[in-house]
């Protein structure tokens, strides 16, 4: 039986959750992962709102929403491994009304949010003191990077940012 990438990554995140208890040294890891979870919740809420408001292509929107839900579950598993302090107290912000006024507006908003999220992952992966979580969290970050390409294509922008 073949093992999917999802099973491998979720397994790694779950193994981290089972094998590591909360320690004072990992307190900052909790904050870092809460930040990533907040971004993932925002993306999930944004794609859900865009689908409801016909502000995104149906197939792409469904695909990205499904992936964001997986990311939320993945980061939640990671949070367990560093000892999450408690449930979130606030509902995630979705997309502002102006971002849902048309497909181009939403794509632009989503691209900015995906870019901000990927940047947060690079920062967290550089400093997070939880070696077992770096690869699985990295595989979420790289999925976000591919979302950027999908959204740039929608916008008719160059697929790759021209930094080089």
């Amino acid at each position: 039986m073949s093992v999917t990438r999802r099973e491998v990554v979720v397994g790694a995140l779950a193994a981290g959750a089972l094998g590591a208890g909360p320690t004072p040294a990992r307190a900052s890891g909790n904050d870092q992962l809460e930040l990533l979870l907040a971004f993932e919740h925002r993306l999930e809420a944004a794609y859900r709102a865009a689908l409801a408001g016909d502000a995104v292509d149906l197939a792409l929107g469904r695909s990205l929403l499904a992936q964001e839900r997986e990311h939320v579950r993945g980061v939640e598993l990671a949070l367990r491994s560093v000892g999450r302090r408690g449930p979130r107290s606030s509902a995630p912000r979705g997309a502002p009304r102006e971002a849902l006024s048309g497909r181009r507006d939403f794509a632009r908003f989503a691209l900015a949010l995906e870019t901000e999220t990927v940047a947060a992952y690079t920062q967290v992966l550089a400093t997070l003191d939880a070696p077992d979580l770096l690869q699985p969290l990295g595989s979420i970050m790289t999925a976000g990077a591919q979302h950027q390409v999908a959204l740039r294509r929608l916008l008719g922008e160059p697929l790759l940012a021209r930094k080089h």
Partner: protein
Amino acid sequence: MRPVQARFTRRGALGGAAALALASCGGRDDPSSGRPQAGSGAGLLNSIVALEHASVAAWAAIAVALPEGPRVQAEVIGRREVHHAKRVAMLVRELGGTPPESRPQSEYQPMFPRLRDEAAALHFARDLEERLVRAYLDALRSLPDTEQRRVAAEIAVEEAQDLAVVALLSGGSASTQAFVTGVS
């Protein structure tokens, strides 16, 4: 973009770049020589520099096998790989090491699969980028320094984007997986 059917083996595609990476990373980074220190990450970084040099050569070969539109994308990706090699080589130098230098294209070429057509070139490109994504994600766990890990994470992002572009050029979707792990 029109779908392209892949028509050659995965083993052939992976073999060249992998062999190059392994062959290129010995000798210049012996921790027993005094610098850099064992456990500094220099050995791993050197192996990545070697892989990036091979990737630059691979993308040059891939570009030649593609029609004009995709070729432009291949050239953009090739330039990104050049930049990656420089960034990682800089990390090695900061540790006091000497990164491996690139070799002439003619030395890499025999180690690549035959790229007879667009499909073969894109298949090779996909395998190459999958391998690069995995290399940087693996490195995250092993690199000891914050800046090294930041660079690895930033380049992993770009390799995943390159992989998405290859998927689009092949007639697929940019984003189909919730977890992009690459393959080794």
